[in-house]
């Protein structure tokens, strides 16, 4: 490890550390533009010049380009270096507009900071300034090319890091231009990061444009809850409104970046239609009275029809505190345990996944980046956990081979091998891999018998040769058997190498829900309501209409209820149909604990005080409103209201809930640990050893590897999409603009068999209803599969997310023929 001296401070750093990074460890921030820890050193801007006084390198050098070496003596304050850096700033400012007051970057602009600190203040350049034409880049980003200082961060991020093609560098010399070949929406679902990575105001966040300066905002750390990864974010809020999210560095999860679903999904918080008023008997009421009313009615129904007549539905987007309080409420009242998952298959899938995990084998997103081989089984990363796709890209850039085994036409911003395999074949396929890997592990010659054209043999070969393989497994498509085989594969590989297992779960707090769910699924609850067994339903922060595909059946069922109590911050049929409504707060207001798919416990505090966004109640500038109290300030944290419903057994604080979980619920033991305010996160280790683990394994021990093929036709899959299928982000106006129209995708051979062609409108017939969509013939997908993009408001006439559909139930809709008379 080289030892060097920077500004008279000695420091020892790992070999390969650049001098700029070594200085950073000492707290010396050498000015920089082109250097970025995630993008590396390229020596373009020349702002990081420092003086090497002694040692193997001498003279003025770029600190981002020089590896720290023994005996180096570096000065960042040497007059020549300071002067050179001042000169670099003068060059960069030659053409830069002098209108910081109208630039949205102002206040958090690296160019402002470095210009002021460099000492350049007097203009010597007399010429005209260069001007560029800006482009329309879609709803998320504003483009102002005149502010560019040509650090190349954007193009390096967009093309190299994120693997997208439609933003690049054009022209040479002082005409270089960063943009698209023509105006148009940026194609990458990671484009929003450009606003974070551009050090000037060229790429700024469009929806928050002119909403405030950095110092105007209430800013606080939080986590993203739009998928199970739990990327870290910074929230900016102003005037009681979430204005903007940025990625916050987390070394284990998202690194420096986040996806656009996460970045722009927040709008539900301050939406005009958000229900903020407690209601019972159709009348606004105060929360305490409403709670009391709800408690009385629930108790009386339980007394009248028995405890089993009360059902509760919990949520995957709720905090652990709310989930725990709901479980405790059911325990205390003797009601059946709450349902958290939409259907039985999903419940079994997620519980199986969670039970597969234990500390030695489950790995973080960072480990995926560092893997040398990745098998993705039954998961569409870009749709189900977008940042996973970016991690896979980094793995691939570092030399890993990525193999995706999935029936869908998977698209990723990287080179990968796709084995399109029907969902119900997945378990057998993984089992096959286990056998091959098992044999080869002992007999290195065994693989050579496999034909190289056999993709599975190649995948097995890849795994055998790998040192850090990771098995990624979804929980949307794969059945229990497949998830178990994926876990087994990771464990088998573990015998000889540093293997990892990485699950993608269906929601931000799906992990803890899996540990808590002791009862039925939502679908079961709905069936029980329909049969009249359940008379009262308590819905907590979830919209069953979003999760249960057959909306009509659900509507009919809910109509039979004597009492529907809903707690939520979202507007929807579940809140509108409720007899009793209680408004809850969002993560941005009350924070909470979230446990990501890896079992990583992340606590977040609220970012803003509650209340209706000022913009919605005042249209003056600056916004002003006189009166008592804060309008729309009724919502309370769900855990608090649930705890009030349980009466005397109530929790006094959210910390009590975590302690209760740690004590009472197997799998949560690690929550006991006093959590340091900063530093390493807490990881749950639910391991097969715990009771819940055994419970999960029991649930799932029955499933055969190959479920019987229920008679011909196609396997109809409803599949997640990056934008448009997640419950919170699908409400965001800026993301709705990015949504593609969901299509039904089918392999060419099947399309030929059914005499259908690309672009045909088709109707899929179910027992009682039709589903209309457009056909997309995709050549990289499994035969026997019809994959339909899930919509957030589906009119899906089947009971399950997935179904079997007979050939004759697929009809082409005749578009009216236009006859042209000769």
């Amino acid at each position, binding site marked *: 490890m080289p030892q060097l001296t920077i500004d008279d401070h000695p420091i020892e750093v790992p070999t390969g550390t650049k001098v700029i990074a070594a200085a950073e460890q000492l707290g010396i921030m050498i000015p920089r533009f082109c250097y970025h820890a995630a993008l590396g050193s*390229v*020596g*373009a*801007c*020349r*702002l990081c*010049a420092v003086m090497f006084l002694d040692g193997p390198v001498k*003279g*003025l*050098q770029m600190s981002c*380009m020089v590896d720290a070496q023994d005996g180096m003596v570096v000065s960042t304050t040497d007059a020549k270096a300071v002067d*050179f850096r001042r*000169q*670099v700033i003068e*060059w*960069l400012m*030659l*053409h830069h507009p002098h209108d910081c007051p109208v630039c949205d970057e102002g206040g958090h602009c690296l160019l402002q900071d470095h210009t002021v600190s460099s000492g350049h203040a007097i203009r*010597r*350049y*007399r*010429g005209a300034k260069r001007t560029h034409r800006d482009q329309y880049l879609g709803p998320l980003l504003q483009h102002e090319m005149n502010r560019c*200082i*040509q650090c*190349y961060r954007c193009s390096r991020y967009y093309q190299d890091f994120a693997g997208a093609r439609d933003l690049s*560098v054009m*022209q*040479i*010399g*002082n*005409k*270089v231009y960063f943009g698209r070949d023509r105006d148009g929406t940026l194609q990458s679902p990671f484009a929003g990061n450009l606003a974070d990575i551009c050090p000037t105001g060229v790429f700024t966040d469009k929806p928050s444009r002119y909403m405030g300066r950095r110092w105007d905002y209430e800013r606080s750390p939080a986590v993203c809850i739009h998928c199970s990864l739990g990327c870290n974010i910074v929230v900016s809020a102003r005037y009681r409104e979430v204005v903007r999210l940025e990625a916050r560095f987390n070394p284990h999860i998202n690194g420096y970046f986040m996806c656009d679903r996460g970045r722009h999904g927040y709008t539900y918080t301050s939406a005009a239609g958000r229900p903020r008023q407690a209601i019972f008997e159709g009348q606004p009421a105060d929360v305490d009275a409403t709670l009391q009313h709800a408690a009385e009615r629930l108790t009386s129904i339980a007394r009248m029809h028995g405890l089993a007549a009360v059902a509760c539905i919990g949520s995957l987007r709720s905090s652990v505190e709310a989930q725990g309080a709901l479980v405790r409420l059911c325990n205390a009242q003797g009601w059946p345990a709450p349902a958290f998952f939409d259907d039985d298959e999903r419940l079994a899938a997620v519980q199986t996944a969670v039970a597969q995990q234990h500390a030695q084998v489950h790995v973080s997103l960072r480990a995926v980046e560092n893997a040398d081989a990745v098998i993705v089984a039954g998961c569409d990363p870009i749709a189900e956990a977008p940042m996973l796709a970016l991690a896979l890209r980094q793995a691939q850039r570092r030399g890993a081979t990525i193999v995706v085994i999935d029936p869908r036409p998977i698209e990723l911003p990287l080179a990968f091998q796709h084995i399109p395999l029907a969902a119900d074949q997945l378990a057998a396929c993984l089992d096959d891999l286990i056998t091959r890997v098992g044999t080869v592990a002992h007999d290195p010659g065994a693989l050579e018998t496999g034909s190289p054209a056999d993709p599975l043999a190649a995948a097995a070969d890849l795994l055998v040769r790998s040192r850090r393989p990771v098995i990624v497994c979804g929980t949307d498509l794969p059945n229990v058997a497949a998830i178990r085989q994926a876990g087994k594969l990771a464990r088998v590989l573990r015998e000889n190498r540093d293997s990892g297992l990485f699950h993608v779960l269906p929601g931000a707090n799906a992990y803890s829900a899996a540990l808590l769910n002791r009862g039925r699924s939502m679908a079961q609850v709905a069936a029980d309501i329909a049969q009249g067994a359940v008379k009262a339903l308590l819905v907590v922060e979830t919209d069953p209409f979003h999760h249960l595909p057959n909306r009509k059946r659900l509507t009919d069922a809910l109509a039979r209820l004597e009492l529907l109590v809903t707690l939520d911050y979202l507007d929807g049929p579940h809140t509108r149909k409720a007899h009793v409504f209680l408004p809850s707060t969002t993560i941005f207001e009350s924070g909470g604990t979230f446990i990501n798919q890896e079992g990583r416990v992340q606590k977040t505090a609220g970012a803003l005080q509650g209340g209706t966004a000022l913009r919605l109640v005042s249209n003056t500038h600056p916004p002003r409103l006189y009166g008592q109290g804060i309008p729309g300030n009724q919502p309370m944290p769900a855990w608090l209201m649930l705890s009030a419903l349980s009466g005397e057994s109530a929790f006094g604080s959210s910390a009590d809930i975590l302690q209760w979980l740690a004590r009472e619920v197997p799998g949560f033991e690690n929550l006991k640990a006093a959590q340091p305010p900063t530093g390493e996160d807490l990881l749950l280790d639910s391991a097969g050893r715990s009771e819940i683990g055994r419970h999960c394994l029991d649930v799932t021990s029955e499933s055969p590897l190959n479920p019987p093929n229920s008679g011909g036709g196609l396997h109809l899959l409803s599949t997640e999409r990056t934008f448009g299928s997640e419950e919170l982000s699908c409400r965001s106006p800026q993301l709705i603009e990015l949504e593609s129209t969901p299509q039904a995708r089918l392999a060419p051979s099947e399309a030929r068999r059914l005499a259908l062609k690309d672009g045909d409108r088709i109707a899929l017939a179910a027992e009682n209803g039709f589903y209309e969509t457009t056909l997309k013939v995709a050549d990289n997908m499994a035969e026997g599969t019809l994959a339909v993009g899930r919509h957030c408001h589906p009119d899906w006439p089947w009971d399950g997310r997935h179904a079997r559909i007979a050939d004759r139930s697929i009809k082409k809709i005749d578009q009216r023929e236009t006859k042209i008379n000769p």
Partner: protein
Amino acid sequence: MEKPLTRNMLPGRGPFSLAEYEKAGGYQALRKALTTMSPSEVTETVQQSNLRGRGGAGFYTGRKWSFVPMGEDAPQPKYLVVNADEMEPGTFKDRFLLEGDPHQMIEGIIISAYAIQASVAYIFLRANYDVAYRGLQVALAEAQAKGYLGENILGSGFGLTLLLHESAGRYICGEETALLNALEGKRAIPRSKPPFPPVVGLWGKPTIANNVETLCNVPHIIFHGAEWFRSLSRSADGGTKIYGASGKVRRPGAWELPLGVTIREILEEHAGGMRDGVSFRAVLPGGASTDLLTADHLDVPMDFNAVQEAGSRLGTGTMVVVDDRTCIVGLVHNLIRFFAQESCGWCTPCREGLPWLTDILAAIEKGRGEPGDIEILRQHTHLLGPGNTFCALAPGAVEPLQSALKYFEEDFERHIREQRCPWK
């Protein structure tokens, strides 16, 4: 006086066909190298010949080849890249060789590729060298048909694929690492060094980039030996050199002369002296990116070390002669404008500094110069110096300016004082 490089170029006719070239002794060196010498013997011979690169930097060719990893474990494939981009203003020596005797260069390429055991070679040709392009196409087809290219050349077991690539036409493509990026289909921006191309080059594999003229010397070195090659020269650097002269001389052109002839000899004996009515004022000895020399330097030998000692560079060896009727400020303005336009745009000093200099020089030339301007110009000659920029374009670009300020500062001052160009 022996003129190996141009001996096949006869006035008034096109290049030799393969048969003519062979009849004149062509491809004998190739036969010798492939059938009687090991790759390391070829490199060794070139090393002993003191051949220095003719692309501008003057690096010892044999030494450069010796950095290429050899043997079984060496990364494969290895590449040889011929730098035929020649966009240096005032330079036209490679064109002369390419149009005049393509087989000579092809033979040089095959021998050099053999020396480093490269299996693929590229000729990276300047965009508008159409005559050379057509000539090369014909010659390549002939060489291919005759078995000098392809598999198992002359039964030696050595094979070479030689590809002709036409540049999209930017000066920076001549910088060897930008050239490699361009060949890979990327933006032509230089790469940071180390690693150097002989170790990590085209598509990450060991790659030698050599100038056209450099490679044209190789067959002669192999055929006649290192000692003979050294003896051609009047200096420590071996061989002859294609020198050129442009500007207001009587007979602008290019000539093959022993390395180390003096500037005066080229100017007076070969270029025929200055035209009537003008007199010599200065010279850019090695192309647009070299420092000006003056009448005091006329007896400097045109070899790498001597020109360097005089405060300039041999560069490409093709000089631009400046007469007393040409405005130095205008000349420097013209050159800097070219370099500003050709900056790749990667690093700040070059991308922003050169256009600023262009603006200032334009202002001075138009009579709108201000007293502080000379100071800004002078500062930039240091600020854009080696090490401060990412590649050698900008340091080269400011060389004429720096020497103009050294020898002709009064010209700049007069422009500013009189608020006009005294030469107009």
